[in-house]
């Protein structure tokens, strides 16, 4: 873009370094992505020997073929989508009203509730008590064990509360009240439609969180048919390491089984990584405009 003022020597140096720096950053971010894509369609032999380092070598789609015929991966996929959708819906259902209520200056006990919320950020029950609680609530081996215990993230509530505080002016609330609007209606009809950016951001935060989580699934689920995708992925990836790290006496049969699994894992692992991250990458551009908007709101309006 031609600029009105001629650039000084210093400016040009600055520009040069700027581009070099950006190029460097681009390479660092892009390389792993390209590597994984290339690895997913290369012969695993070249990948593990390090001969394939950027462009695919010995192109084969065997990995993808294996992924597409593996019913476990698809069951996991289906489960993850269900958990992510239901989970995110529950998260928003809890987070939005809580954040809005806490943002209102006329909310009685606001400080007290905020304080109680904050305590949970610093003190947790720990693994075993949490497990016992979930068990006694009868949620072990059900999807609710993955969704309800983490339904409200205090961190996200604080972010959303700050958004409400800074973008929904008190005057708006007063004007609505003068026209006879109830609090519930105010929240549903006025505040929520004005808060699409924060809803999108929260949905993304929570959604990605659900998509990537495996730990609660590992702890609470007992049935493979209920495992989310990440759990399946983890099984494939971790198993490959286990064969070589076994200590103590080993039986031939176990070694055989692990070796078989390792072979399959070498073939499919990069394909699985791509298949499992694709949806998140695909959704991101559509939500990104809300991010931009969210940043602008505070800065331009002034």
């Amino acid at each position, binding site marked *: 873009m031609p600029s009105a003022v001629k650039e000084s020597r210093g400016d040009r140096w600055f520009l040069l370094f700027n581009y070099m720096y950006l190029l460097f950053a681009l390479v660092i971010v892009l390389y792993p992505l390209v590597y994984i894509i290339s690895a997913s369609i290369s012969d695993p032999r070249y990948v593990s020997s390090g001969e394939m380092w950027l462009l695919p070598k010995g192109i084969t789609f065997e990995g993808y073929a294996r992924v597409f015929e593996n019913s476990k991966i698809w069951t996991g996929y289906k489960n993850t989508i269900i958990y992510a959708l239901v989970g995110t819906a529950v998260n928003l259902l809890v987070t939005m009203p809580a954040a809005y209520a806490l943002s209102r200056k006329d909310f009685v006990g606001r400080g007290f509730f905020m304080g109680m919320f904050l305590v949970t950020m610093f003190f947790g029950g720990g693994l075993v*008590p949490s497990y016992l609680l979930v068990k006694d609530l009868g949620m072990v081996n059900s999807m609710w064990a993955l969704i309800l215990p983490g339904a409200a993230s205090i961190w996200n509530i604080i972010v959303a509360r700050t958004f409400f505080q800074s973008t929904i002016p008190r005057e708006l609330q007063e004007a609505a009240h003068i026209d006879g609007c109830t609090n519930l209606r105010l929240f549903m009809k006025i505040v929520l439609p004005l808060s699409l950016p924060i809803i999108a951001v929260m949905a993304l935060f929570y959604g990605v969180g659900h998509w990537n989580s495996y730990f609660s699934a590992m*702890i609470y689920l007992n049935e493979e048919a209920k495992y989310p995708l990440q759990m399946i992925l*983890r099984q494939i990836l971790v198993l490959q390491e286990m064969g070589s790290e076994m200590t103590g006496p080993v039986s031939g*049969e*176990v070694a055989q089984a692990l070796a078989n699994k390792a072979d399959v894992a070498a073939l499919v692992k990069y394909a699985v990584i791509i298949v499992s991250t694709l949806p998140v990458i695909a959704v991101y551009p559509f939500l990104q405009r809300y991010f931009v908007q969210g940043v602008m709101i505070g800065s331009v309006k002034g």
Partner: protein
Amino acid sequence: MRGLKRKWAIILTFSMLFSVLAACASSSPSTSEQPEAGSATGSNVNKEGFPIVNEPITLTMMAKDAGMKNWNEMPVIQEMEKLTGIKFDFRNAPLDSFDTKKNLVFASGDYPDVFYAAELTQDEEVRYGGQGVLVPLEDLIDEYAPNIKKILDENPEIRKSITTPDGHIYSLPRIDLSAVWYRGPMWYNGEFLKALNMDKIPETTEELYTYLKRVKEEDPNGNGQADEIPFSSVKLDDVRMFMLGWWGIYGEVIYADKNHKVNYTPMQEGYKGYLTFLNRLWNDGLMDKETFSQTDDQKKSKGKNNQLAIFSDFHPYFTLGGDPNPEDEMMKPLKSEIADSPVYGKHPGLSRGAFAITNSNKAPEATMRWIDYLYSYEGAVLFDLGPEGMLWKYTDKDNRVKETVPVEGDREEFRATLTPNYGIVTPGIVNNDVQKGLKTDYDEFLIKENEEKLLPYAKVPYPLVYLTAEETEEISKLRSDLDTYVKQMEAKFVIGQEPLTNWDAYVEQIKKMGGERIEEIYQAAYDRWNQNQ
């Protein structure tokens, strides 16, 4: 500001108080829930014959799961249920997260009725057995498990090895008295042997050295490049035990020699010989420079590229690719400058902690009869091979001779959908008759190789003993520092960063860190074990 602070303090105090109260409240019901050890269902159990129970019962089982198929849908499990009347609800966990889940289950008090293929450690048996979580099995064995009782009576050393210091048996093992390999042995690349006209494989470390030197210089893979890597390993973990045998050492950490003296391996003279030899291979370029950085995966890809001459794996074709073939010979343990070499540390023949019953089990008698079936010939056939007609059928039932039934696709993968006994260490006994008629040529080759090359030098490095809780604690404290130190020094000695002239200083340092104390503790446990004869 100060008011705010005070408010905070009050909130914090209350929330902590609540959490303390909550913890107290939740602990009381779980203790009162424990069922009485004696069982009311005793009358439901038949002491002999099948079904085991008159009224069907359902128990929960926690098992390590290779994830090949839902266990409820496996023909073996369904057959067992039909036969015994005992149904299981599975609370399985995959191989990679089983240990996490097992710890959680023990810590939370939410026990399954039985553990299957749980690989309980000796520490877990001693601790949870002592706390009464695991049920003592010896009386149940006498009453309800004729097969197990027979095995234990015939093999007193097995009974000795599974009896904890308090005199009780808390878990049942997998027994495989024909097992030889502690871990995969080392192999030659058969193609290289042929290319270099080796009609006799090396018998001493010097001969091996000469062979490796030739591999490096004479291009046995015939591609015109000097890309051969005579010897490769993954951080030496895969080869250490096998190679130590060349210098008269049976085990990696601890072993008892022929005079019943327990030794801590890293301070032995033989260990120095092992380091010296590897250092020589390293200096002369006969050892993979990536030994200490590569993964198993990377090593295997070198094998598939036909670059390796000797390596360790369970079967050579895992590393070299292709089909099982007897051309790739097993290495013979080599004679070195140490007298009494070579030796070979052999598999102890049983794996402990494969099966246990917890105190939440309402029908321990019926459970014992169920598991006892797995130690009979019929049970072993069912669980290891699946029901007749799927993978195999009898040609001579009286003599237990079988033949294979052809299946489409991979046999092992098909077997994994029939029976839970795949990829895990399951309770039971390996019976020679089980595989009768089903052995492949490759199986026969392995048996022959074991008999000729390993068994003449083989001894179990250290018996399966139980340490007391205090001993376990002390050992783990000492070893947490020592293991790291030893491993670091091993690498430094091999690559020459630490000259071997510093050996004495190294041994001094180990002694300072408690190497001799480790010997003492294991010696005491070993003597106890020996006295129990």
